[in-house]
Structure formats: C-alpha cells, structure tokens
C-alpha cells in the first residue's frame, strides 16, 4: 500500500466509524446529524471551542509522536503517560528552582529538562527491550503507574505549595509561562511545538541516513542487521527520543496550561497518543491532523452532552469504534482474485491449462 492509499483508507474508516457511531446516537434517542453538527461547530468552528481543542491537541500530538517514532523502529511505547508525568516533574522542578532568567532561556531549560525526564523514563524499558529481550509493552505500561505516583508524592510532599488545599506545587514564574496563541483563551504555543516536532520527525525518517536506518529496523530487523544497521542501538534511540517527546507534552501542560505541577495532571494523554499514532498510520506529518481531530472529538464530548444530551459514554464509544475501524483499515487487504473470499467465490482456473 502506498502512503496515499493508506490515508484514503483511514479517512474512509473514520467516515464508517462516524456512521456506526451515529447508530449509537440514534439508539441513545438523539439525532446523529444534529449531534455531529454541534460537535463540528463547537469543537472546530467556534473560537472558544477551537482554543479548547488546541489545548488538548498539543499533548496528544506529542504523545502520538512518542508512539510513532518507536513503532517505526518496531517497538511499542505504551509508556507515553508515564513519560509525560516525568517530563512534567522535571520541567516543574527546573521552573521552580532556576533563578530569574529571561523567559526564552528559562523555557528552553524547562523543556530541555522535561525531555530529559521523559527520555530517561523511556531509556530503562528501551534498554531491557533491546539488550535483554524484555517485552516493552508491559514494562512501559507498568512504569506509567510508577511515574504517576512519583509525581503524586512530589506534589504532596517536597514540592507541595504552602497552604495548598490539595496536592499541587507553587505556581511558576510569569516569564516561564508559555505565550498564548489565541488572545483571551487558554490556547498556547504548545501546538506549534508539537507541529514543529512532527515536521522534524518526518524529515528525519524520510531524508536522513539515520532515520532511514531506524525505519529499516522497524520494517525488517533481520534484514536491517544484515545491512549493517545496529538494531539494538536504533531501538534504544527511538524509545529515548519518543520518551523525550512525551516529556515535552508534560512540560506543555505545566508551562502552558496549569502553571503548576498537579497530581494526576494528565488525563490519559499518553494513551490518546496511541490512538493518534494509528489514526496517522504512523506518519509523523499526518499526526497533527490526527491529534486535532481526536482532540476535537474529545472536547466535543461535553458539547454533545450539553447541547444535544448525548451521553458522554456514547462519545467514548465512538472514539473506540474509530480506533477499531482505523486499525482494521490498516491491516485488511484489498481482496484480489488471488486471495481471500473472492478466490473462493470465483471459478477456479484449471491449473493444468498451460503455463506455470
């Protein structure tokens, strides 16, 4: 399948999923067209709705890239959530402790620290996977919980703001807050960081020898090894860079939206990243679109509930249906005369009728 064929398939599968979701909305007793219209209106066309969508899309995009890159090298990073938490923690510690520096320098330090935090958190499962053969899905998944609790401990102990009613840190200095993109809204510069990362990743994989080699490992690790590529090192690198990207998402939440480190500050963005990765068919340049769409859907859950009365759980179900349809679109092959059910239906050509 060529890249464009994949994109067409993904689009079609989303349409199919929305149709199936429409059935759910009907069962729920509402008009699906009205519900989708409200969703479109409020998530993407309305100024405040759009800003809300962008706020959600930023971490989702980075978390999506954190899944895409390792998967291009053949490893599945389920640890985006934990890496977001560690990125948030590292970023917040730096933000709360660096002396009074100009905002840009400070932001670079904060985001650098967040990348280190996320990258370190990914390095451990990456090492186990590459050099010890341990299943990375399990290790990254379990380390999510560890990271979440480390942050909870930090903000209810050493980092807890004085007199805080529940676990959160002090507020970061004003000059370290990410600039706002859409005036008077919450929409901050984070989305641009994500888009920049997506573009860089795209060019890295497509146009540099090291990206080409990383991609080889994911496509056929054995052939890559025979071609002189160090598969283990590429697995390590992809996971660490992926973790660093998720770490940036953590810093975005801290420096762009909440301005403090909260406990449980990420509401599953790491897992949303997995959905983004598949929606984008593992193509980094498509990831921003996928994240924007998913964020809109997620932001629209509340809208559909408020304006039409569709249950929130129905919207979650629709998200699930989208994931299943997209995953199916990526693996199901177009039936040809040589394969699958079509072969069984078509009359068999006589094998002895000549030729090989």
């Amino acid at each position: 399948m060529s890249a464009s064929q994949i994109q067409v398939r993904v689009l079609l599968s989303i349409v199919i999923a929305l149709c199936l979701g429409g059935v759910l909305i009907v069962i729920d007793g509402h008009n699906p067209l009205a519900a989708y219209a409200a969703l479109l209106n409020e998530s993407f066309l309305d100024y405040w709705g759009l800003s809300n969508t962008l706020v959600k899309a930023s971490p989702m995009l980075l978390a999506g890239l954190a899944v895409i890159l390792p998967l291009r090298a053949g490893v599945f990073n389920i640890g985006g959530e934990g890496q977001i938490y560690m990125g948030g923690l590292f970023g917040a510690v730096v933000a709360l402790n660096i002396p009074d520096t100009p905002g840009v320098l400070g932001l670079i330090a904060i985001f650098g620290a967040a990348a280190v935090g996320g990258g370190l958190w990914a390095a451990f499962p990456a090492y186990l996977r590459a050099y010890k053969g341990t299943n990375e899905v399990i290790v990254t998944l379990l380390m999510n919980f560890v990271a979440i609790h480390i942050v909870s401990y930090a903000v209810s102990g050493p980092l807890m703001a004085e007199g805080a009613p529940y676990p959160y840190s002090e507020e970061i200095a004003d000059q370290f807050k990410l600039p706002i993109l859409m005036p008077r809204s919450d929409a901050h510069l984070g989305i641009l960081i994500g888009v920049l990362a997506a573009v860089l990743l795209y060019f890295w994989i497509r146009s540099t020898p090291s990206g080409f080699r990383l991609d080889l490992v994911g496509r056929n690790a054995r052939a890559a090894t025979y071609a002189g590529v160090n598969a283990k090192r590429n697995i390590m690198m992809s996971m660490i860079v992926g973790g660093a990207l998720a770490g940036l998402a953590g810093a975005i939440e801290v420096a762009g939206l909440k301005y403090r480190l909260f406990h449980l500050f990420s509401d599953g963005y790491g897992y949303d990243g997995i959905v983004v990765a598949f929606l984008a068919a593992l193509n980094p340049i498509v990831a921003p679109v996928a994240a924007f769409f998913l964020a809109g859907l997620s932001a629209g859950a509340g809208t559909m509930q408020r304006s039409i009365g569709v249950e929130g759980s129905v919207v979650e179900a629709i998200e699930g249906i989208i994931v299943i349809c997209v995953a199916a679109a990526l693996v199901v092959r177009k039936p040809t005369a040589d394969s699958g059910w079509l072969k069984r239906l078509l009359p068999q050509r006589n094998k002895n009728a000549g030729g090989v």
Partner: protein
Amino acid sequence: MAAVLSVAEVSKSFGAVQALNKVTFEANRGECIAILGENGAGKTSLASVLMGLYQPDQGQVALDGTPCELTNPSVALDNGIGMIHQHFSLVENMTALENIQIGLPAAKRTQRALRDVHGICSDFGFDVDFSAKVEDMPVGMKQRVEIIKALYRNVSILILDEPTSVLAPTEVQPFLDEIRVMVAKGLTVLLITHKLEEIVQAADRVLIMRHGRIEGDLVVSETETHQMSSLMMGSGDTGADLSQKVLKEPGRSISNETALALSSVSVVTENGVRLLDDINLEISKGEILGVAGIDGNGQRELSEAICGILEITEGVIVLDGTDITSQTISERIETGIGFVPEDRHAEGLVLSLSVAENTAIRTIQDPKFKNGGFVNRRAITSYADDLVAEYDIRPGDPSLPASALSGGNQQKVVLGREIETASRLLVVVQPTKGLDVGATRFVQQKILEASRRGVAVLYISTELEHVLEVSDRVAVIAFGRISGVVDPTTTSSQEIGMLMTASKGE
C-alpha cells in the same frame, strides 16, 4: 511373514518436479534402514508420505501386508508410524513426563501410565529424569524424550530425520547405540541421513535416493562407502564433463595476492556443537572459490562469520592484510564486502520498501546517495534505474515495493546490489535459487565479471554443477569442516561425493 512396511511404486510430484518416482522397498521387523541422498533427492518427501502429510499420486503403502490409506499424521500414528523431526515438538516448560503424555486422554495419564513409561525406559536402556523440565535438558536428552513419546504410543516404525545433526559430538555414539537397542527389540527404524559413518554403524540396509528414485537398496555390511556416495551423486562423471559448459575463459589469470584468509576459524554453540570447525581458507584477488556441500553443513555459518553477522569463537579473518575479525557488519560493508544471504526475504530485502530503496539499504551512507548529509532520493532512484536495466529486473519500475516482484526478480535485486557494490570480496550463498536457466547464466557471468575486476568471490551453493561451472577451486564443506579442496576441471563427482560425506579425522 509379510514385511512390516512395504512401499510399492509410490510417486509424488509437485508441479513439474517429480519428488518421488516409483519408490519401492520393504522394511522388516527389527531392521534399521538408512535413507541416503542429496538435498532434494526425495528423502523428506518419502517420510512425509509415510507420515500421512502427503498423499501419493500413485502407488501404495502397506503395513503388515494390509494396504493402508495414510490420510493424516494421526492415522499414521494409529498405525504405528512415528517420526522424530529435526526440530523437536516438545513443550519447553513442561516436564519430560508431561511431554510424553501430552494430548492423551486422562485415563492414560495415571500411575500405571507412569509405570509403563518407566517400563519402556528400562526395556530400551534409556536414562531420563521425568520430573525435569525439557528446557533444562541437553539436546540429546530432549531427543530421547521425543523417542519415548513415540514408543509410548506403541510405534512400531520410527522415522528419524537427520537425528544426529542437532547432537553434540559426544552424544552421537550413545544415540547410535540406542538405535541398535531399539532395533534388537523388534522396532523398525528408518534413518534419514547423509553421514556414511552413521550408516555403517547403525543401519542394516541403505536405500540410496537420487532425483526421487531409489538408486540402490544395499546391505550395509556388504557395501563399500564409496559405492554409496557414488550412487548418491549419480554416474561417475569427472568434473570436466560436469562443467563442460564452464563459463571461465581459458587460462584466466588470477593474482597471487591473497584477498581473504581464514585461519583456524571455529564457531561453537553453548552446547558444544561445532558449527564451524577449524576452517582454513584463502582466496586470492580475482579468484572464485566455490564451496560445495550438502545443505546444513556450515555453509550459512561460514558466510555469516565472514560478513560479521555471526561472531566466531576461535580464529582470525583477514581481508587484504587487515584483521577484520572484530569489525562490525557495517565496517565490513564499508571495507567492500558484498553479501548475498541465503534467505532473500528475511535477510536480503525489506519487502515493504520500494525496489529503489532496497538497492540502497546497505550503502545508505555512501556519498553517492547523499546530498549534504541528507538522503538523495533522486540519486537512489537513478541508481536503481540503472540496476534494473542492467539486471533485467521485471517489472522495470523501481518505485514498486519489493514485495510486488517475483522471487527470481527479488533475487536479482539482491544480487545486483551486492555484485555492484562489492569492491574486495563477494560472498554469495545459493545465488541461483529461484532463477531460470537464462537468469542463472547471466548471474554467473556477472559474478565472473566481478572477479575480473579483482574481487575475490566465495561462491557457496548446494548445486554442484553451478559451483563447478564458475569456480577456480572448489572447497567441500562437511560437518562444519573443509574436507578437501579440489580442482573443478579434474575432479570427479565421486571424489566430491566422498568429501561431502567424509567424517572427521580423514
């Protein structure tokens, strides 16, 4: 008394290939029959028919004089035919006893059953710890568990497929002795092998197969080993006849400068199996050294050791005066080693990438594919265009994914890439696999051209004729050792056959 097993005029073909051609023989109780033959001679096809995996096109199999339709392996097992494959079918994390009883109705898994198993062991003199897990056992012990598993199911005919190939050297003799014990107890053993030494030690009769036919059914004690090997190889042609279509120009000169030198190279597994055993080889610049041998005798390991994929346990590899023993794969590629691996799908190509990208996977760091540090896709495409034209790769569109090509054309992509990039050494394994006659000729010409450029070539193939056609010298590999180096113009198939089956210490 009727023979335990009689096979009458059994034929089986796959497309145009006649795997079995009117195979006829009988086996008696308490007899070990060896089945000897080259690759593709029909040994495994015969075993598969007996196991019910293949249905013969013609002919009949009878057990104790009664014709039998062996429609699937469980029917074969019910009729007392069991087979031990080279790759065991044991569950590693279960105990020996659990493995022996696996799949049987619960009624058979009782204390009495345990006594039965112990009975079998004492009958046959097997010493097995039944409570040990299979994963903790040495290979020889696992094999014993497989055999007990078959005996426990009342097998009267046991087929062993190259049973000693997985064993450590010290395990071979006890295993052959066990075969004799089983035979003495009245079992019929069919031993598929290409090791003459084992046939002499363990078998009563030997069936020699060639091109799907039984070429000889001989009593081992009355037969000389060279008789067996020459029947296996076919008529006693000399190399000159075999390679009458020799492609080399007469009197071609080969530099006396050594390109590749292997000294005392060995690869030993954790179990002590010597995959490569003290290999000493030299290839001069511009020379083609053929490596002949029966499949699975160390050819793959030899090629992988030279190209850096397999780490060697002992020895030194030198290329053009530089010790490359500890160089990485990519360093060796940069040095100018081209490698056509045996399995093009798994090792040579990335099927989901385009043909063009596949021509660059080993040399993406080459300046000709780069443009200021970035991948120059246009350069890759134009390079691939040339390669596609030069090697007549069809369809001639390098933007297609490699998976869209036929096997022969995929092979040409790998061959073209490696032949064109090898500047010092070219290692090719089974280069003509899947190619038709014309393409085979063409590839051989290309390899000769490379040698004329001064590239040393290691041409590893199980197709003896092809090896003789292109090689300046032919080394024969057997059981991980080089058993001899011969001149292709003066050797005979008999000589090579002896070397291919030569045991150690000759």
